[in-house]
């Protein structure tokens, strides 16, 4: 039954993803991509559970690596996006 709900959620989220992005000015292409990339770092949440759970050494190592990689993605992603957008603002206000 859980899977049913999850697939419902999947479908709705996909439709929503399609509808959300309609027309993006060229200057925003890269920041938007980068921002979305940061969101895809959500896999960090999965990694946390993996790294923190009781498990074999292997899973802990893998989990920790996953956490590290995902954190890079998240932290770096948001910061980079913000830097780009900050520059963009300046350019517009000029």
């Amino acid at each position, binding site marked *: 039954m859980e899977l049913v709900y*999850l697939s419902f959620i999947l479908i709705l989220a996909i439709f929503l993803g399609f509808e959300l992005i309609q027309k993006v000015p060229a200057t925003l292409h890269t920041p938007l991509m980068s921002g979305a*990339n940061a969101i895809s*770092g959500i896999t960090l949440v999965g990694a946390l559970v993996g790294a923190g759970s009781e498990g074999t050494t292997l899973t802990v190592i893998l989990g920790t690596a996953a956490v590290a990689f995902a954190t*890079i*993605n998240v932290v*770096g992603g948001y910061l980079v996006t913000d830097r780009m957008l900050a520059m963009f603002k300046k350019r517009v206000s000029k």
Partner: protein
Amino acid sequence: MQTVILINLSYTLAAVLFILGLKFLSHPATARRGNILSALGMLLAVVVTLLDQSIIDYRWILLGIVIGTVIGTLAARLVAMTAMPEMVALLNGFGGISSLLVGWVALAQPDLSNFILLTIFLSILIGGVTFTGSLVAWGKLSERISGRPFLFHGQRQVNALILLANFMCGVMFVLYPAQPLWLYLAIVLSATLGVMTVMPIGGADMPVVISLLNSYSGLAACAAGFAISNNILIVAGSLVGASGMILTNIMCKAMNRSLGNVLFSGFGAPSGDDDKLEGEVKSLSAEDAYYILEAAQSVVIVPGYGMAVAQAQHGVKELQELLEENGCEVVYAIHPVAGRMPGHMNVLLAEADVPYDLLLEMDDINPRMETFDVAIVIGANDVVNSAARENMNSPIYGMPIINVDYARTVFVLKRSMASGFAGLDNPLFYKENTRMIFGDAKETVNKLVREFSA
């Protein structure tokens, strides 16, 4: 139970923040706010996850987070502004490998159903492709790898083979989860697939590729979400997957490519093959043309008799203004015999109040035609007939024309493939960089104008 509900309600909130974040990110005025909202969503999701009761050991987590934060912060701070795209590629690759690892860890769960096994396989496959693909993209952009397309004979066949092997491996993986061979094979194969699909693509097309890989990394997270039955991974992952697909499509249009080409690779093929394409006319919708114009830095408008017939001059003026507002340079190139009487174009453009300074003579524009991103030919034909330059047998051979075909992209707005006053075929229409936008010029121009809405 209470924490589970709390966590999941927080996830709902985080999902809302991601949704709003994406929505805001696609408008210049709100983009920065959007990014912050989505970061808040992420923070919320991470923090509440730490409350999860199945997490019993925080040491490793802390280690991972510290390492990741330090590297991520440094990378984001230190990277040069010009190196942003490759930075994004690299970060994206890390997201991919992380999903792969999460999938791998999920294998350790007890009682795996076939469906869960399938999603684990998918998170490994997509995560792996994202990882190596992103690394290659990063290498190409930062010129650590040659930006030229890497091509060899039988490439298609080899790729098909890898894909098939991957598929087989997946089947085996689901059927015999206990056998680690299939796992390792899956990792290797997906890594190979990532490299093989991105290598053949030229450096100029990398932004599109990164956007696509970004969409993939969303899908990988989504698959990982299924693997560990986690809502927020599914929602956020599929949001990114879907919106990334749309963004890729938009970027393709801005670069005058089709998404199909990208998805099945082999696009950006070397120009050697293209000469054979002559004889094929590529048409474009006004909407797709908009994406290209929106990204253009310089545009030259070449009016002809068709603009007069369609009475499109007012719309053309408006298009010019919109392009200028968008930060684009616009000029008009007037061929001396355009129209049906001397000065025909001047009469019309003066009526539409186009400043005289923007009207350039043929001899002034031709030498700098290469510098224009787009040449928009509006109802002209003979005056841009490249046969006059190329075909010694043409009756107009030797007549000077406006060399629009030297611009990066040429739009030709006319109703059909019909010839003009001189009754001659026009090889321009068949050139690689020419796109025909069929329809009455006024209607087409008005459509373009309307596409330029905030």
